[in-house]
């Protein structure tokens, strides 16, 4: 039982270490693929919209949506 508990703890610890190592070497797509001549909008302002329903449409965009379109980073989900 002791070996099992230590094994589970070690698995979680190694998983967290892997998460930190992998996350530190990752960039968001809008950061990785943007150039001085091409801006890639971040998730939430693309085709699906922040609510994953195709919105915001004209007239329904919020201030936050406008900020995103301008390129100011928010806190999108990592994928």
């Amino acid at each position, binding site marked *: *039982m*002791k*070996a*099992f508990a*230590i*094994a*589970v703890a*070690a*698995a979680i610890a*190694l*998983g*967290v*270490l*892997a*998460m930190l190592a*992998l996350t530190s070497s990752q960039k968001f797509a809008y950061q*990785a*693929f943007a*150039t001085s*001549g*091409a801006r*890639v909008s971040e998730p939430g302002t693309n085709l699906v919209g922040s609510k994953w329903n195709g919105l915001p449409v004209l007239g329904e965009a919020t201030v936050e949506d406008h900020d995103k379109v301008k390129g100011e980073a928010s806190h999108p*989900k990592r994928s």
Partner: protein
Amino acid sequence: MRRAVTLFSTLVLAATLLAAPGVFAPAQAQSPQQQDGLNPMGTKPTADSVNEEFLFKQADKITGRVSIPDQKSANLIQPQGREYRAFRESWLPWIGALGILGMIGALGAFFMWRGRILTDDTQESGKKILRFNAFERFAHWMTATCFIVLSLSGLNYIFGKRLLMPVIGPEAFGTLAQWAKYSHVYLAWPFMLGVVIMVAVWVKDNIPNRIDWAWIKAGGGFIGHGHPHAERFNAGQKGVFWMVAGFGAAMGVTGLMMLFPFTVLDINGMQVMQVIHALIGVAFIVGILAHIYIGTLGMKGAYDAMGSGEVDLAWARAHHDLWVEKEQAKTLSGPQLKVRHPAPAE
């Protein structure tokens, strides 16, 4: 006079009408398309233009040119992707369901037929012998717990949207799938480490030999009530070991290709890696289901080997008699509990 003017105007109009077809003929020749859309030369106007069929004779996919760094976005049409999609959306769920449910059904049928494999009591019953030390059990359980999480989160990729989402709804499924994906990606690392440790620790006891062939010919103790001779691991356990080593390596390599997408492979290679990863993953789960069955419900006393590490000496004598003799030869006082390897886990 007035009549003369009228007559002259009529003549001019008639001459104009007669000459008009000749005047507009050159313009009509420059636009050969007729009202029915056909070229008067007998060919379609787009017959010589570039089409998909022509482009696929030059390469296996159609690409364009882009100015952003992600050159993959220049890929327009790739027919191989349709085959991959057909496999993933049509074949894979059936292969996975038939494989896993088939094994569960087969194990259930075997249990109904054979029942739990028991060990007869002997004079040695009640005495204990160390089968796996703490470090071996640590490596096994770290790999095993990761494998279970990887299996469930992996099956979620195939069956989640079909089975779970209709039950719990898209919002809950989205959250669950996101966390399942995190666990799949991050617990893959301790799993790979565990496979490497287990291979290093147990490979010397898993080299196939003639005793294994005799064990297989005798039915491995599954048929009848006798137990053929076996060393530390019998042929069945060696099969599980090499399955874990081989499938673990294959899952690790294909998984790394997906964890670092397009680092080594192109889009075709990525899709092939996913197909291999999925098929071996299903086979891996099917094989481990049998391993879990025989290690718990299927055989009395087997779980103790990985539970406490110590097994009943009578059980060990029945299932691994050659190993018991070797272990007892190491000590002069019969059953031993001496730890053979350092045990950093405890």
